[in-house]
């Protein structure tokens, strides 16, 4: 888990620099500070379980196993990207490892996740889907409709709310009158709050929810309280958040916490350093792959509109 959290952090830091250099195009919504959520959740899933993601998908994709090469190539708008340069940052994904291309409409993944769960149920499969969304999503109609359908049909879905307390710049207290996990009661499903910066806590809560889903007992809503230590998107300096609050959360950095706990449990410093060095090398390789890859042909824009050429 430490390996994946470090891979996410370093990937995001590198992407930010590449964005400033103009090599990564468009916009980016970054995941620094929330790594324990993606990694804790995805560690509790099997490879053939699926996730749905959001406009902030890099961490989810890395945790679910999307190769960094193809992710970086996608950000560089190259034909070798995981979405063949059709998706970009906000639609990152790779269905072959269970990462549905990310859905950048807030709460858009909630109803789709219910449908994916319905498919698994009809297929008599014990697969589950973990559906990531932010605190802003719980006030969308799609959240209510999807959560309600999943609950009434007992579908194998785990709803993961990454509560970072701000919907873009709007603080949660202006939008959400009750705790997010409390919403679960409205659907008659378990709702739990976990420390989203404690990867072990996220993992444990997800294991419980996944087991319940696999048993056919239906969804769980897990509210992971966390914080993005960077802006909402490119160029957001986060001026709407008190400095003290940001500092407080930086003290709770999930990677630092895990590192301390690993060392307390007897892990060697040099082992941890080796994991970090390996992540650096992997990211450098990914950048080299992306830089050396070819852009798509302009006419490729006309492919994949109607599902032709897709293997049934």
């Amino acid at each position, binding site marked *: 888990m430490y390996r994946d959290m470090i891979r996410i952090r370093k990937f995001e830091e590198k992407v930010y620099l590449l964005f400033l250099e103009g090599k990564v195009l468009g916009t980016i919504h970054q995941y620094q500070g929330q790594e324990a959520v993606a990694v804790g959740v995805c560690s509790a899933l099997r490879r053939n379980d*699926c996730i749905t993601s959001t406009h902030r998908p890099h961490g989810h994709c890395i945790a679910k196993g999307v190769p960094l090469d193809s992710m970086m190539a996608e950000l560089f708008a190259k034909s070798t*990207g*995981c*979405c*063949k*340069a*059709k*998706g970009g940052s906000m*639609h990152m*994904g*790779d*269905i*072959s490892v269970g990462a*549905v*291309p990310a*859905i950048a*409409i807030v709460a*858009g993944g*909630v*109803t*789709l*996740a*219910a*449908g*994916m*769960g*319905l*498919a*698994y149920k*009809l*297929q008599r499969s014990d697969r589950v*889907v973990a559906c990531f969304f932010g605190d802003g999503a719980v006030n969308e*109609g*799609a959240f209510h*409709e*999807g959560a*309600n*359908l999943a609950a*009434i*049909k007992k579908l194998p879905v785990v709803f993961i709310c990454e509560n970072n307390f701000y919907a873009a710049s709007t603080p949660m207290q202006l939008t959400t009158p009750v705790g997010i996990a409390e919403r679960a009661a409205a659907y008659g499903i378990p709702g739990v709050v976990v420390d989203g910066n404690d990867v072990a806590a996220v993992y444990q809560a997800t294991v419980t929810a996944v087991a319940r889903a696999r048993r056919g007992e239906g969804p769980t809503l897990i509210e992971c309280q966390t914080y993005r230590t960077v802006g909402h998107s490119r160029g957001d300096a986060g001026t709407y958040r008190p400095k003290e609050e940001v500092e407080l959360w930086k003290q709770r950095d999930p990677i630092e916490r895990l590192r301390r706990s690993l060392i307390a449990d007897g892990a060697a410093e040099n082992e941890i350093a080796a994991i970090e060095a390996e992540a650096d090398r992997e990211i450098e390789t990914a950048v080299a792959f992306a830089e050396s890859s070819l852009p798509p042909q302009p006419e490729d824009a006309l*492919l*994949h*509109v*109607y*599902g*032709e*050429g*897709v293997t*049934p």
Partner: protein
Amino acid sequence: MKRLSIAEALREAMREEMLRDERVFLIGEDIGIPQGFGGAFTVTLGLSDEFGHERVVDTPISEKAIVGAAVGAAMMGMRPIADVQYSDFLFCAADEIINQAAKMTYMSGGTVKVPMVLRAPVGATNRGAQHAQSPEGFFMHVPGWKVAVPATAYDAKGLLKTAVRDEGPVLIFEHKRLYGKGGRKEAGGLDLTSGIPDEDYCIPFGQAVVRREGADLTIVATLLMMHRSLAAADLLAQEGINIEVIDPRTLVPFDNETMLASVAKTGKLLIVEEDNLTGGWGAEVAARVADSGFDLLDAPIKRLASYDVPMPFAPVLENFVVPSVDRIIELARAMVKGKV
């Protein structure tokens, strides 16, 4: 060979596809409730008795969840047929239809497919403005969706089967007044049946049908307006005016060739649609003919559509707004006589 109404033909298509392919299932409101409606227009009546409530999934009144769940299930290898009761309710699920279903294959670089069918009844039937629209044009505009508009029972069955087997999302617009005998009787509804072959058949998308041949004027029309155009053509024939009526059967893909071949013969094109005039599918069709068939025309292209107002309730108002057989006759006659 037997004769079925559109409602019966759609039901038979769904039943046969469910028997043929266990991935096919139905999802919607009021579709499988015991002693219930079988959908708003009886199309799914009895299917839950045969296939059980697992494959005929009754949902809350949650159009976003119905369409979103169909998208999600289709992505995971199922073949959902979703039903929203009235096409007006498609707008509740605009995000799922336009941002999710239509774009998922594209955004994934072709690796994720969304083989789903979405059924939506259209047409004005004295229900007021929110259960009356014919919004085919809205969705024809969205790259990613194919759009079918069956006007006969034969086409309804064959097009629905093609839709179920398609690798991408397909919208089927069915007309409330055309469900016919066996479906719920609509005031003024036509009692239409077709001969249905005993063997399995599919109708390829993008193949229009010439419903009636004629040399004086081409009418392109779908659904109820196609039937009204045929009725108008019958009456005009008594005056010696011969109308060719073309039913596109699918708006996406659209059979430009059949239409242009007809215009080459007649030199005149009238498009009749039930949607209101501005920005309807007829505008797109007119633009295409102006673009690639300008030299074939010897008169301006005309469109006859509902007026640009929300659909009113009162029959006297509704009948005024929606193109009638009389209005089709009047405009077609004037066009043939060179008076417009």
